């Protein structure tokens, strides 16, 4: 009883269009969640370093609360826990407009925002204090120092770990299938159900994730090179 591969299941029938739909959903959910994560990450990463304690405390609470609970739990929280808190009308509207998609987007974005925040904080803290002091001495307010000096430098420093974090976000979007989002992993399982060809379907999923992630990593490497500040970031080779 040797396993006989039958790769044609991947392009015969509906498999191809399922994979494509799954890919589109995965990209949509990851893209939106990424924007949310970066926005939350920049704000809370910056807040964790400001010289005012209550703000730091709020940001610390956000980071520790959201990154220390498993993503799966957050998925259930946003899908099952949040809607009952909304007024009836809003809830009905949401259920009618792909509630599972938005719940998964929030879960991914808020969770990865907390992790992104730590990446950004480490970037900010790697900048010598003298930069901050020099900027203040120029007459800038604290907000201006962050907006014009600290954050722009920090964002350039953290491209490699932020890329890693973004790739994690993309791959973690597969957890959304637990709340019935028909993303890429869901679709590979769908193919398995219809064709009983588990290995072929999983291989297709693997290859798509791999190509996607390697593609993003390549683009980010170019971004890193393009925005590097001469003299500040030394490149090997």
């Amino acid at each position: 009883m040797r396993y006989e591969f039958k790769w044609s299941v991947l392009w015969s029938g509906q498999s191809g269009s399922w994979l494509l739909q799954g890919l589109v959903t995965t990209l949509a959910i990851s893209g939106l969640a990424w924007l949310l994560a970066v926005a939350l990450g920049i704000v809370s990463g910056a807040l964790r370093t400001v010289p005012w304690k209550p703000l730091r405390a709020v940001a610390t609470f956000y980071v520790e609360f959201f990154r220390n609970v498993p993503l799966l739990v957050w998925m259930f929280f946003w899908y099952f826990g949040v809607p009952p808190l909304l007024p009836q009308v809003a809830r009905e509207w949401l259920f009618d407009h792909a509630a599972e998609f938005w719940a998964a987007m929030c879960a991914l974005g808020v969770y990865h925002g907390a992790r992104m925040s730590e990446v950004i904080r480490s970037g900010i803290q790697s900048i010598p204090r003298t930069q901050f002091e020099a900027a203040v001495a120029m007459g800038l307010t604290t907000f201006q120092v962050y907006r014009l000096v600290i954050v722009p430098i920090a964002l350039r420093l953290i491209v490699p770990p932020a890329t890693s974090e973004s790739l994690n976000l993309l791959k973690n979007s597969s957890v959304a299938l637990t709340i019935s989002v028909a993303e890429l992993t869901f679709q590979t399982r769908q193919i398995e159900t219809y064709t009983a060809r588990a290995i072929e379907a999983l291989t297709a999923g693997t290859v798509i994730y791999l190509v996607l992630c390697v593609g993003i990593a390549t683009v980010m490497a170019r971004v890193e090179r393009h925005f590097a500040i001469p003299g500040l970031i030394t490149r090997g080779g």
Partner: protein
Amino acid sequence: MRGVRTVLFLMFGLALSVAAPALAQQSTLEKINATGVLTIGTRTASPPFAFVNKQNEWVGFSIDLVEQAVKPAIERKLGKPIKVEKKESTPPTRIPLLTANAVDLIAGTMTDTRARRESVDFSLTFFVTGAQFLVKRTSAIKGIESIAGRRVAAQQGSTNAKIIRERVPTARLQEFPDQPAAFQALSQGQVDAYTNDGIQLYGLRAKAPRPNDWKVVGDFFSYEPYGMAMRKNDSDFRHAVNVGLMEAIESGKYFELYDKWFGPNGEAPYPLTPENRRFLIMQVVPK
């Protein structure tokens, strides 16, 4: 997570099937005769067919059928007592477990289908059910004819989801990997109905905190005949299993067990319809 488990099982199955050919020559009855053990693959959480109860015993209707109908028939055929051993088998693992000789008989909630008959053989049909819908008591949904445009939950990989996708493409199907999540979505209103095999819905309803808040509606929109699966091309063993089931139906033992699990005081009350009773009896061929 389930994906990873599936891969591990498949790899395990592949490894076993490479090692298996030497054993494969032996028929199942010869194997049972040599070891004195009939190994069945069954479920741990599919009440009332096969599940672990509060006393931590592995019981259920399918298991009773094996122990009280199939086992005596095999014992008579071999002329000696045998033991029944149970192993967990889930939908993705049951066929590999069978072909790898890890189990001899699947006795759980497996639907007999033509596609599956390409890889395994089935016994007589020992239970008949079909897909229905679980809805709130006040719901207007009456069956597959009234789900167009509605949000319907299903279990991923089920035949029910497949049929809805083909017959009512406008229904908004949401597939969950497991039953608890789907039921949670139903009770909170994320979905309007949940579809699964009727008997499973009755089981779910019986176990819900307030069973009267729910109702099972609709005619069967799929046909799910449960059978016991075994390795292909082993007609002596298949015949022994079938003789056991036929005798149980003939002697009334089957109906006694049915009443124990599906009767008014059973785990999931599910009255046996006159058609199904006739169908079961007509499967019994003369002595």
